[in-house]
């Protein structure tokens, strides 16, 4: 309605939007371009935005760096196991949270909120001591358990929302038809919950794949480095020549989370927006 009257304002708006796009996008483009540059170009004192020639040497170097490859395998083990455990544990729990109104529900929801804002430094020292008692320091098992606990709050919150969307009448109908409780769950609830489980497991995978703090504290053996850990330790010994492989390794290790967000971004924004409009 005001577009015709405020053409100057609109032009300024486009300018501002362009500014934001540059601010948000430029560092990403730079990371991308650095990863394709040759060592000689990286050493240049007048760097250009686009590489002179697209070289895959950095990617080769990053992959051939035994550390990064092994770290990738470790990350895959940790994130994979965490995801499986999160799903196994949170499917029944979220069903109970969504369907049964008990005191447990209030406590669980309160804990989910608190755990989002609690400083992990207070937890990490005793956690370290506890895991040490069980011999789970410098062990991927220990890291998997911690990642499980760490991704559970959000996983539960997400999944119980999906459960709540399944009409309870469906289950009641199945029960009336003589299906046992277990059978109702396996043949009615579970299939309807699959999209929710898919979303939750992707989320758990990415959270564990990206996790850094606990890995830093719990893993000292370089053989057991996860990807973020390997990259962070790589930074510590970086020379000018290493910037390229570092950028390439970063890009490669981002692929799972980018795929996840490509799949989820529509759902993420629309879900948030829908919720706000309704509320």
């Amino acid at each position: 309605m005001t577009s015709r009257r405020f053409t100057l304002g609109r032009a300024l708006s486009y300018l501002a939007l362009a500014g934001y796009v540059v601010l948000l996008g430029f560092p990403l483009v730079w990371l991308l371009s650095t990863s394709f540059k040759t060592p000689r170009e990286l050493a240049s004192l007048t760097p250009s935005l686009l590489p002179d020639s697209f070289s895959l040497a950095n990617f080769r170097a990053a992959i051939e760096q035994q550390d990064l490859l092994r770290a990738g395998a470790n990350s895959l083990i940790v994130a994979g196991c965490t995801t499986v455990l999160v799903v196994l544990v949170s499917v029944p729990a979220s069903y109970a949270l969504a369907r049964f109104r008990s005191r447990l529900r209030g406590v669980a929801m309160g804990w989910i909120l608190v755990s989002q804002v609690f400083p992990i430094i207070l937890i990490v020292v005793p956690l370290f001591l506890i895991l040490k008692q069980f011999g789970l320091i410098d062990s991927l098992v220990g890291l998997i358990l911690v990642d499980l606990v760490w991704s559970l709050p959000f996983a539960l919150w997400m999944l119980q929302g999906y459960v709540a969307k399944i009409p309870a009448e469906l289950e009641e109908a199945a029960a009336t038809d003589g299906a046992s409780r277990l059978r109702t769950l396996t043949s009615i609830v579970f299939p309807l919950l699959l999209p929710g489980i898919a979303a939750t497991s992707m989320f758990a995978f990415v959270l564990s794949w990206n996790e850094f703090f606990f890995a830093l504290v719990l893993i000292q053996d370089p053989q057991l480095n996860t990807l973020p850990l390997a990259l962070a330790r790589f930074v510590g010994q970086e020379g000018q020549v290493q910037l390229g492989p570092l950028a390439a390794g970063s890009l490669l290790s981002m692929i799972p989370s980018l795929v996840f967000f490509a799949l989820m971004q529509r759902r993420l924004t629309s879900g948030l927006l829908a919720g706000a409009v309704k509320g």
Partner: protein
Amino acid sequence: MSQHATLDPPVPAPTRPTAPRRRRDRGGTILVLPALIPVALLSVWPLLQGIYLAFTDTTAGRPGAFVGLGNFADLGSYGLFWDSFKIGLIWAVSVTVLQFLLALGLAVLLNMRLRGAAFARVLALIPWAMPPVIIAIMWKLMYDPRSGPVNGILSTLGIIDHNVNWLGDFSTALPAVVFVGVWVGMPATTVVLLAGLQSVDPAVLEAGSVDGANTWQRFWHLVLPSLRPVIVAITTLDFIWSFNEFGLVYVLTAGGPGGKTMLPMLFAYNEAFKYGNFGLAAAMGVVTVVVIVLLMFVYLRAQRRAAQ
């Protein structure tokens, strides 16, 4: 949170007999148990133990004895800790405020249905998907004193006349790190504010423009007040998240140069895992929680007063 409320299952009628409900609850407990055990063991128990540790002189080498408020007395005269605390406050406040202002601007633009807004929205989500370690690596490339584009662009524009070592210089390290913090957190804040903007009742704005209010007046007197609850919630969360930040700054500067970017979490981490003073580090954690809770209490109360 409003989304969560709308997802709640229908409340069972309160007139239901209590006996079957109790049985249902027991079934619920069994289902929750596999989640409850790891959480109790590795989240709630460590938390309680962490609070207890703060009152002991435990070190990496040996389990400590109960020392009462000894650690807190030590912290009182531990100048470096309070320096770090001050840096943490400067960092958290500036990140929260700048992030809010920039995110509000972007949210308003995205809400105007400009061409290209969809692209900007997807772009704004990418920092969200990136692990902090990689964001830190990316900005180390950006700030690189020899070949980083930050120096390149600023010297082309004539703002600086020699290359600055942004992350290594005493005076620029903290601002440079704050800038990265803002870049990282802006997307999430933008999405929340955008959701708030889209829930502003268009009829109210219509009425405003009928009454002769211009765009700016409508924004200031109609849009902002109705956004207030969203703004209070997201700035509170942003502040807490910023204060608890670790990975980003650990990789960017590791607290340097000369402790200029030593956030409290980094300080406590070093105290615990570099020097092995577990009890003292736990006490730092407790102090941090208490201060955050107090600050949030004051902030939320001031906001509530202002709203009335």
